[in-house]
């Protein structure tokens, strides 16, 4: 009997707590990122973008007329992501979760949020299947690996072939990639897209990112008279590739990277600015971008520097900032935190390309993926990662036919 009383009292108390939470005058949002461990640096950089978006929104009167209250939760890997998502939902009583930089973390956390019917806004993970599982309440603002792959093929068709004054199908293309999940996924979509565009892919060569010697692969590329190399890689293999390409005197007419090692300043420092001059890179929008194609970019950089005292460390914060702003607008339009209404409002968003700080637009398909979240095309010019495409966002004209100077 006694036990039953106690249980009864506890249930009452719990109901009481829930009652209080829903009647609060703040909007409770969870921020689920890797804040410690190996992914911490860029996880934190991603969170900064979200944090700035929240501050801006709060300064402008908040969301649905209420202040936004953020609950940070650390997820270093998939296991911890599950626990963190559960805690955010059951203990912190958040009404939506924003995250999460890494695809493995996003995969795990969204399983929890979907079951609880809590909207999950993904602002940075690029693995395609995250939005391909038929979930109702996952929405993703950023481009996926397929977007990266499609853009590389766009670069060949719209920049390189016209620049070299040849037909795209006359170019001999090689796809090389590190053989773990990241490289394999992007390469798979690149092969599909190239086939669809009728391009001539002569070599597809995977390699281990831990290789200490890529010279035989380079000899093979040289032997196949490759014009355009598409590489999906991390930092060390990118550095190794460029060094050994120079040693073997292999000079393709263009090299296109898909983010990863191609986007970091460290890589260009190790390879040398001259050796990387003219190399294309597909990635989230970076900072040398024309504000005409990315309104609000300058204000973001200013706010970032004012708050953290340094310039942004990578494009991740910007992508998270722009994505969060997009979703805040949708929630505002939904008029409540009801997941069903939020879904309707997100799917109804219609922002043309070039109207957000990243230059992305917003048009979500039924799976919750933003079909107007497309990566930008950058080029290393004199040691600087410069946006060259799309035209509105470009700060320089692309240099074609030159790799290294």
């Amino acid at each position, binding site marked *: 009997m006694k036990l039953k009383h106690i249980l009864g009292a506890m249930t009452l108390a719990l109901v009481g707590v829930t009652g209080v939470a829903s009647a609060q005058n703040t909007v409770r949002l969870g921020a689920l990122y890797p804040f410690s461990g190996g992914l911490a*640096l860029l996880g934190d950089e991603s969170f900064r973008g979200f944090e700035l978006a929240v501050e801006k929104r709060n300064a402008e009167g908040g969301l649905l007329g209420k202040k936004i209250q953020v609950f940070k939760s650390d997820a270093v890997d998939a296991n911890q992501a599950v626990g963190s998502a559960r805690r955010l939902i059951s203990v912190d009583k958040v009404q939506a979760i924003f995250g999460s930089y890494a695809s493995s973390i996003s995969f795990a956390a969204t399983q929890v949020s979907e079951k609880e019917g809590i909207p999950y806004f993904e602002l940075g993970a690029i693995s395609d299947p995250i939005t391909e599982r038929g979930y109702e309440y996952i929405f993703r603002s950023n481009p996926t690996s397929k977007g990266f792959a499609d853009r590389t093929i766009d670069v060949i068709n719209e920049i390189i072939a016209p620049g070299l004054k040849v037909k795209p199908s006359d170019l001999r293309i090689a796809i*090389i990639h590190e*053989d773990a999940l990241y490289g394999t996924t992007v390469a798979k979509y690149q092969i599909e897209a190239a086939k669809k565009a009728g391009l001539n892919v002569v070599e597809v*060569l*995977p*390699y*281990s990112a*831990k*290789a*200490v*010697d*890529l*010279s*035989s*692969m380079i*000899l*093979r590329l040289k*032997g196949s008279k490759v014009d355009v190399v598409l590489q999906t890689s991390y*930092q*060390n293999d990118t*550095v*190794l590739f460029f*060094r050994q390409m120079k*040693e*073997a*005197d292999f000079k393709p007419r263009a090299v296109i990277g898909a983010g990863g090692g191609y986007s970091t300043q*460290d*890589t260009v*420092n*190790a390879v*040398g600015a001259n050796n990387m001059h003219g190399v294309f890179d597909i990635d989230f929008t970076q900072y040398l971008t024309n504000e005409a194609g990315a309104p609000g970019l300058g204000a973001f950089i200013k706010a970032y520097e004012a708050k953290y005292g340094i310039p942004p460390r990578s494009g991740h914060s910007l992508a998270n900032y722009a994505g969060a702003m997009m979703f805040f607008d949708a929630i505002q339009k939904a008029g409540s935190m009801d997941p069903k209404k939020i879904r309707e409002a997100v799917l109804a968003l219609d922002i043309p390309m070039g109207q957000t700080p990243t230059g992305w637009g917003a048009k979500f398909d039924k799976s919750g993926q933003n079909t107007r979240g497309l990566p930008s095309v950058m080029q290393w010019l004199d040691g600087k990662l410069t946006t060259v495409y799309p035209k509105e966002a470009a700060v320089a004209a692309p240099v074609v036919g030159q790799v290294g100077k």
Partner: protein
Amino acid sequence: MDIFIQLVVNGLLLGGTLAIISVGLTLIFGIVRVVNFAHGEFLMVGMYAVYLLYKYSGMHPYVAVLPAIVILFIGGALMQRFIIQPLLSADPHIQIFATVGVSTALLNLALLVFGADVFSVKLNDVSSSTLKLGSLTVVSGQLITFCVSIVLMLLLNWFLHSTYLGRAVRATAQHRYAAQLMGVNVERIYIFAFGLGCACLGLASGLLLPQYPVFPTVGSFFVLTAFVIVVLGGLGSLSGAFLGSMIIGLVDSLAGYYIAPDLKEVVYFLIFIGILIVRPTGLLGLGRGSE
């Protein structure tokens, strides 16, 4: 045909680089009988040492080899004296855990001090230029590394066979108790051998730095291959390690071209398994009689 010759040259030159790293590992493996999982991290420490010497005192990496050898010799000797020696009579697993512990500690220490950034040296001299011999291109830095690896082999061979200390080292490797009975101070020999094995990495660091950038996990790029080489050549056999390095280098280069870059490891592990089935003690292993 040109390409085949180029591939063979590339393979042998890569083998030279691997040889210097593997020789150090096989010395420790064969003499102290400890599987040193921290070998790669010692290489990383050496490369950071050379990098810092280059950056702050402008010392050419090839010159910085000398201080790096001293630093790593001392580091290795200290590790043997204070970490391995107290565990010598313990279960071999415990020694392995101890070296894994050192490896993890060094790796994270490097992450703490230097961060995950990649550092490299920029030199426009003989260490990084390319030589053209007809249709062949050879990186002169790799050629130098290759030559140094041969000299190192000859020197170590002379040392182990023609000096008292060297003979004591070999005696200890063959049978530690018998050596002790013959008046060899086994503990001191172990400390010396561990230091010597690590000192080889000091040599490797200076030779590698003009070609490979340094970062905390750089050791793991080389050391798995080094383990394969050492077992392939026969534990504790110097010439076995050298032969193994050349075989792995050649397989790496040829399989990367003729089969596929991602399958080259499959090929050399197949060869590895094949050789171990035929000769369980490795190509030039001492055979069943040894300790």
